[in-house]
């Protein structure tokens, strides 16, 4: 076999290797037999293995996956093809309710060793109903394993692991990669499910990618290198199991994370990766998520020393522009302090820009049921979150209106009806910024 093969050829090669190795492997799907598949990803299989192993089906996605599942329950290792991943919507019951649930809901009586292959992703101009990248649909369902290779060798290696898996595996073949070429897989090549690959080493930023975004990330890394930035590129290869160990180890070195996903922003695997890094990354990319919410009595009753009832944060420095170097620093002479109103030299507890005292009223002057001034009595940052920020974070939040990495700012709290658009978000941020510099809280 050639040293270099296409991703498309690798699909057929990966299937052929398992069909040769294990007589219980059978394939079914639309046009996969003599036609060789609409993407020619099953080319040659019908000739080599015949009708007893390679089964053409009607256009019946439910029957394809249901039959595959029934066969998987009774001694075969079926590999079902759903021609385009968009068509998962036609047979979603099997991917959401049946294959992933049966083992659990029978108390472990059965296994479902089935592979569902599909052509996924955009870029070929097939329109809105044949171009979606839907791996996040599968990610939302516990009980499915998910592979999405980016190279021909990984196609073969992950196909072997998927077919040998006793759990259901959804195998996303990327349409945009079918024509791409790469080194052929060595004999017996198996890539264990749930092992990401560091496909380019780097030290300044970690780029996490999957399937078609892997070559994109590699291309970006190449460009960054010319600008003196060293990017590490990780190919996740699988979403379940998700190899966060590799991502966390990389981020621990680079301190920066970029996820590159061919998907709508909301609810994607990139958000999952980012949230795990925020949660477990030891703060290298920021550990706090800042929510500004409409508060409740409980928010205030829960209390957080730093925020509400106990320790207050004071700006060190004088009233008239001499505020001691808080990050925003330049009060233009207003010198307002949250705890004591304008004016007055506050004693510094230490040499830092901020100090804390018990019993201050820094925030409760303006927030919460005891607030007597300002329009934000019913708006709060939740106490736990505020308590979780470092002093530096708080300085940046309060004085500069800067949200730490991993945080977010909800503009609709300050500008009712704001839909996240640039203009109203800027208005909200300005209002918040101004407020926390106390120019309006104590203003005219």
């Amino acid at each position, binding site marked *: 076999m050639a040293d270099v093969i296409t991703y498309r050829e690798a699909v057929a090669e990966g299937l052929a290797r398992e069909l040769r190795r294990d007589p219980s492997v059978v394939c079914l799907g639309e046009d996969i037999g003599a036609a060789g598949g609409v993407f020619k990803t099953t080319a040659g299989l019908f000739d080599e293995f015949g009708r007893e192993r390679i089964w053409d089906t009607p256009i019946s996605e439910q029957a394809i996956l249901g039959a595959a599942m029934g066969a998987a329950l009774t001694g075969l290792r079926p590999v079902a093809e759903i021609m385009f991943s968009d068509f998962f919507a036609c047979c979603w019951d099997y991917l959401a309710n049946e294959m992933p649930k049966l083992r659990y809901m029978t108390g472990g009586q059965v296994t479902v060793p089935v592979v569902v292959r599909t052509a996924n992703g955009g870029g070929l101009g097939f329109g809105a109903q044949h171009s979606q990248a839907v791996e996040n649909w599968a990610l939302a369902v516990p009980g499915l394993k998910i592979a999405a290779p980016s190279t021909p060798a990984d196609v073969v290696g992950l196909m072997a692991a998927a077919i040998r898996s006793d759990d259901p595996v959804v195998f996303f073949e990327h349409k945009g990669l079918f024509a791409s070429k790469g080194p052929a897989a060595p004999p017996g090549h198996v890539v264990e499910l749930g092992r990401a690959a560091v496909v380019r080493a780097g030290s300044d930023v970690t780029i996490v990618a999957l399937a078609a975004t892997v070559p994109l990330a590699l291309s970006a890394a190449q460009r960054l290198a010319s600008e003196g930035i060293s990017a590490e590129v990780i190919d996740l290869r699988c979403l379940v199991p*998700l190899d966060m160990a590799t991502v966390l180890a990389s981020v621990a070195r680079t301190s920066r994370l970029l996820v590159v996903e061919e998907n709508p922003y909301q609810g994607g695997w990139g958000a999952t990766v980012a949230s795990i890094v925020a949660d477990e990354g030891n703060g290298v990319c920021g550990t706090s998520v800042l929510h500004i919410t409409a508060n409740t009595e409980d928010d205030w009753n829960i209390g957080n020393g730093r925020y509400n009832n106990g320790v207050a944060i004071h700006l060190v420095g004088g009233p008239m522009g001499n505020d001691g170097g808080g990050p925003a620093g330049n009060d233009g002479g207003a010198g307002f302090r949250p705890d004591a109103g304008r004016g007055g030299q506050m004693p510094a507890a230490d040499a830092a820009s901020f100090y804390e005292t018990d019993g201050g009223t820094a925030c409760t002057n303006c927030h919460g049921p005891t607030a007597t001034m300002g329009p934000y009595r019913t708006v709060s940052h939740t106490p736990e979150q505020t308590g979780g920020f470092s002093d530096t974070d708080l300085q940046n939040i309060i004085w500069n209106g800067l949200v730490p990495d991993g945080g977010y700012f909800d503009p609709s709290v300050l500008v009712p009806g704001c839909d996240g658009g640039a203009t109203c978000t800027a208005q909200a941020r300005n209002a918040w910024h101004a407020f926390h510099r106390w120019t309006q809280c104590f203003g005219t």
Partner: protein
Amino acid sequence: MTAATEAGTVSPADLLGLYEQMAVIRGTEKAAHDLFLQGLVKGTSHLAAGQEAVAVGASAALRPDDYVFATYRGHHHAMARGASPAECLAELMSKASGLCHAKGGSMHLTKASAGMLGSYAIVGAHLPMAAGAAWSAMIRGTGQVAVAFFGDGATNIGAFHEALNLAAIWALPALFVCENNLYMEYTPISAVTAVPSPAAGRAASYGLPAEIVDGNDVVEVRDAVARAAARARSGHGPTILEARTYRHFGHSRTDPGTYRPAAEVEQWLLRDPLQLARVRLADLGVPERQVAEADERAAGVVREAVAEAKAAPGPDPADALRDVWADGGSSWRT
């Protein structure tokens, strides 16, 4: 499997055995109902009282290694294939000793070791699975058949039609057995279906043979399933059976079934499967005493099952995430 007999004939001993199986199922379903009323069963339940003859008759015609797929109204199929009343009731009561270790509940009774490959609560979903099990049997050359039991309501969902077509074109050793109890849930099936016989009436579309049978007559069901299974095993493909039957309770435990005319209910209760079997037993000369003894044995089995299920411990919370994956675990990341 009862001894092969001429259609419509059955030995007194075989029929008494079938009768006792049905009596056990009936008693278990009533016990389940009572346990619900006592608050000892959580969730919902869809009782099969009245439909026992379909499960027991079919099982009598099947091989032990054949496959059965049932619906959320599937207690009778689990028990007919060998699940004990105790393990069924324990499952309903979320006990560790339940068939599915308290992870399935009433709608998912499964006894895989007996070829009873699940009860499915998405209407029609298991028909393609049964086709797949039959496909597997054909490929492996085992001579097994796969049976999908489903309600009349399933005949209007896409999976039903996709499964029939696939089974037909591949001549799969599959049996599609509709338990037509006249109501999809609360609505008469006749009000929402274009043909009078919701399952059998669709057979011609797929070039399949179909039979309409008295689903309350255990012998008639047994014989029809035996014919269809023989046909399937000999390579002649699937058959549709439409068993006309009736449920004694409502659709689910919250449904008193008031939408059913009283006269209709009364008429069907007269044709109760146990009553029909008693008439047949009398015709065969089986003494009433023997029938009463069978009833007593069945009642004893149910009594013990209730006591056993009540006494069983609940599941260990540490097992809550067991068995998501084949290795027993639930981890989704490293």
